[in-house]
Every structure is written in C-alpha cells, then in structure tokens.
C-alpha cells in the first residue's frame, strides 16, 4: 500500500468500475446478525467462598445464547467453581457461599423462590470423566425425560438426543447394550445426549475432553459447534488451544495472591476469543496464552 511520494498528488474520483458487490453486502449483514448477542446469563460482582476461604472474587461477565464461552486459567483460578454457580451445583457443598448476582433470562438465579432442581433441568452439565449410569444406552438417555414425567414419544426423544450428540449411528443397533461397553469418547457423547434429552437451553462442560484421545476430542469439539446453533455452551478447559479452537468468547481467570498468602480466583479478561489470542488487553493474559505464566 506504500507508493512513491510523487504518485500521491494525483486526485482520485468516484468509482465507476467498482461498485460494492451485493454478495459482499449480504455477507456483511449476515455476519452482523450472527454476532448479535442475546444475553442468557448476566453475572454481576460474584463472590464465592468455601467457609472462611474465598475461592473467587468480583466476577462480572455475560453469557450469550448461540455462543461457546470458554473459561481458561491455571489451576486454582476458580474457573470450575465459577461454572458450578450457573446450575447451582455449589449448593450441594454445605460450606459454599455465593454472593453477588447471576441473572438467568433476567431473573435472579439465586432468588428465594428458585428451585435448584428446576434450574438443573434447564442448565445441563457434562463433567471431565464420562459418568454414564450403569444401565443400558437407552436408559441413560431416557432417564431424564422419565424422571420429569415426559414419557410421551420416549423413543423419539432418545433418538433425537443421540442424533444431536452425534452418537446415534454408532449405537442405534445396540441401544440395550450397557453404556459402560462404550469407549470413553462415546460415553462422553452419551452424557451429552443425556443432557440434551431433557431439552435444556444451556450446556455446561467442565473439562469435557481432557480424559479423551485427540480423535475423540475433535469429535466433542465439532459437536460443540453443532450444538451452539441451538444452545448456549459454557466450557471450562485447561487446554488453551481447545478454547482457541471452539470458543466465541473466552474468559481468562487467574490467581490473586494476597500478602498473607491467601489465593483467590479472579477474572482477568473477558473478550472475543480471537482478541484474547491475538492481542489480549492484559499482560497477565498475554503471559498465560503465550506460555510465559510463572
């Protein structure tokens, strides 16, 4: 784009040979539409502590529908603690205390009248280690709908969930086989299908691929791209490259060490994933993603 200086003086006129392409305009429109954000969770000033020990302090961010949002950061940064706040899993730990607010569809998730069990129907979760029930493949997926009394067209629900989890073709001839006969990657997709069967609108994934081999990992990552068309996906991962590959938004958490040695998780930076991995705003993020973290 640099030109010889004596060339710069010639004046330029409006373009006749150019004309902006209709196709290019349409693509631009579509890109904008795709990036229109619908807030599903609005987190404001969240603190979590276990007894006297603070685990996470002052976290504020938003989770959007049809986005994959990744939480990354070193061990002890509170990212797993944080993801467990979204379906009130921390309620199951007696000493855990959550302060601040998480609004889900605009309503306070920790409000007096909110039933945590109801919350977990809408907000499914997948864990690091695949944890199918020691039952048949079919019964694993049918479990949720049965418990919720949604027994109409159970076969259809099971098939749809397995299709969405990209597992149907591999198991359709052996639905009565034990879930434990599946490979690790298949078991993880079964757990995702189990989530989907109750028709949630958010899927939380805590290290969903860290126990899997690279091929099974790729399948889970591809699956996330499929699922985000219908759901919001939130993922905790140790694997930065995984966040880079799959996430639209990335939150980087770190550990704040107080003078007394107390370690608390903090949110350092939350931004578009390409921003985080090309030009992060915070030096601590830069140090982490470039592998120069302490």
């Amino acid at each position, binding site marked *: *784009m640099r*030109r010889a200086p004596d060339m710069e003086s010639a004046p*330029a*006129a409006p*373009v006749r*040979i*150019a004309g902006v392409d209709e196709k290019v305009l349409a693509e631009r429109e579509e890109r904008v539409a795709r990036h229109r954000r619908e807030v599903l969770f609005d987190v404001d000033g969240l603190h979590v502590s276990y007894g006297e020990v603070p685990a996470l302090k002052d976290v504020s961010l938003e989770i959007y529908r049809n986005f994959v949002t990744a939480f990354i950061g070193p061990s002890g940064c509170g990212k797993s603690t944080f993801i467990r706040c979204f379906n009130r899993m921390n309620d199951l730990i007696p000493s855990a205390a959550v302060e601040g607010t998480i609004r889900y569809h605009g309503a306070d998730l920790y409000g007096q009248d909110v039933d945590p069990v109801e919350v977990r129907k809408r907000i499914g979760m997948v864990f690091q280690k695949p944890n199918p029930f020691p039952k048949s493949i079919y019964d694993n997926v049918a479990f949720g709908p049965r418990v919720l009394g949604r027994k109409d067209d159970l076969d259809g629900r099971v098939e749809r969930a397995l299709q969405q989890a990209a597992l149907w073709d591999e198991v359709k001839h052996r639905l009565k086989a034990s879930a434990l006969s599946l490979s690790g990657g298949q078991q993880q997709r079964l757990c995702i299908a189990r989530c989907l069967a109750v028709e949630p609108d958010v899927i939380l994934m805590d290290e969903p691929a860290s126990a899997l081999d690279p091929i099974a990992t790729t399948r889970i990552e*591809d699956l996330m791209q499929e699922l985000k068309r219908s759901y919001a996906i939130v993922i905790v991962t140790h694997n930065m490259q995984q966040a*880079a590959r799959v996430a639209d938004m990335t939150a980087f958490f770190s550990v704040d060490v107080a003078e007394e040695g107390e370690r608390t998780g903090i949110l350092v930076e939350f931004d578009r994933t390409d921003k985080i991995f*090309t030009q992060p705003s915070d030096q601590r993020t830069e140090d982490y993603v470039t592998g120069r973290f302490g």
Partner: protein
Amino acid sequence: MTAPRATFQEALDSLEATLQEESQLVLRSLRGAMSALREQDVELADEVIAFDDEVDARYLALEQGIESLLARQTPVAVDLRLVLAILHINLHLERMADLCVTISKLMKLARGYEGDPQVLESFEEMGLRAEEMVGVAMTALAERDLAAAESLLELDELIDRANRRLVRHVLEVGGDEPKREWGLRMIVISRCLERFGDHTVDIGEQVAYLVTGELREFSDASHDATD
C-alpha cells in the same frame, strides 16, 4: 455429523475464496489501467486509483483472517503451507493492484502526446500477457497445478522481452526534454507491467511450495543478466 473440524475447513476455504476474489479485482484494475492508457481516459484512470481501496479491503481482511486462524487453529502440514501461501500471495496481489494505480497516475502525468503506435502496441501486448499470467497463477493455485505454476517463468520471459524492446524504442526516439520526460514515464509504465509479471511468477512459486512443500525460486534473479 459433518466432516471433522468443519469450522476450521470452512475458515480455510473462505480465506482461499477471498484470495481468488482479490485476484479478480486485480484483474479489473489491470484492465481498467490498460484501457485508460490506450484511450487516454483520465476519468477511468481516476477510477482505477480509487478502486484500489477495494483490493486493500480484501488484503486487510485476509491479513486479519490469517492472524486469527494461526492463533486459534494451529494449522499444520498442508494446511499450514496453504495459510502461508495465502499470506504471501495476498501481499503480491496487493502490490499488483498498486502497480495498476501507478500506471494510471503516470498515464495522467504523461498526457498530451499523440500516441506512439509502437509504444501502444507494446503496452497492449504486455497488458494481455499480464492478464493471462494472473489467470494462470490463480488457476494453478485453485487446482494445485505445479506444471502450470512453473509455466509462469516462460510467460514472464515474454513480458520481459517486450519491456526491453520498449525501452530500446523509447531511447531511440529521443527528442527534446518534454519528449524525454514522456519517454521516461513510458519506461516506468513498462517497468510496472514487467514487475506485475514478476509478481505472478512469485505466486507460482508459492503454489509450488504448497504442492511440493519445497520453497524454491523458479529463477535466481541475482544471476539473471537480462533483468
């Protein structure tokens, strides 16, 4: 389920499509510049100059797309070679469009002389050859065609010869000072077209790298006495 890493593949395909689109814009720029030169059409020359923004927009989009892809998708092997080839070809195309702008600006500065038929004929020939070379280079890329990429070196020899002929002719014409200034501008335009051809050869080298994995120059310019 879709093919593995569908998102990544889509991003790669989209980069390559944008590069092809950029080359089409460069072709339009070249045709515009040559037509303005032939017809002494100042208005068209101005349009070519303004049109460069369109090429620059693609250039920047590709730079940003590649930055993001490298940071997020960690391409390796043939994917990495493709990304690197696109990165280099992108710069060549952007430079080629700049050469068209330079030709248009020189044409405006050199107006007022009745066309020298031999000069016009040379430009006509060089313009058509340059156009053909863009086509060969970009098709070679699209089809991963090593032989087509390598054929650019021979095509470039023809444009080089036309350039040398034009330089000799302008020197022979000589004339008074304004005429010599005109001649100088014609030589620079010719040089632009010759450089345009060189860029297509460089694109061919990138195609060869993509196909074979081997980075090499088709010819060693530092040992080429005729350049």
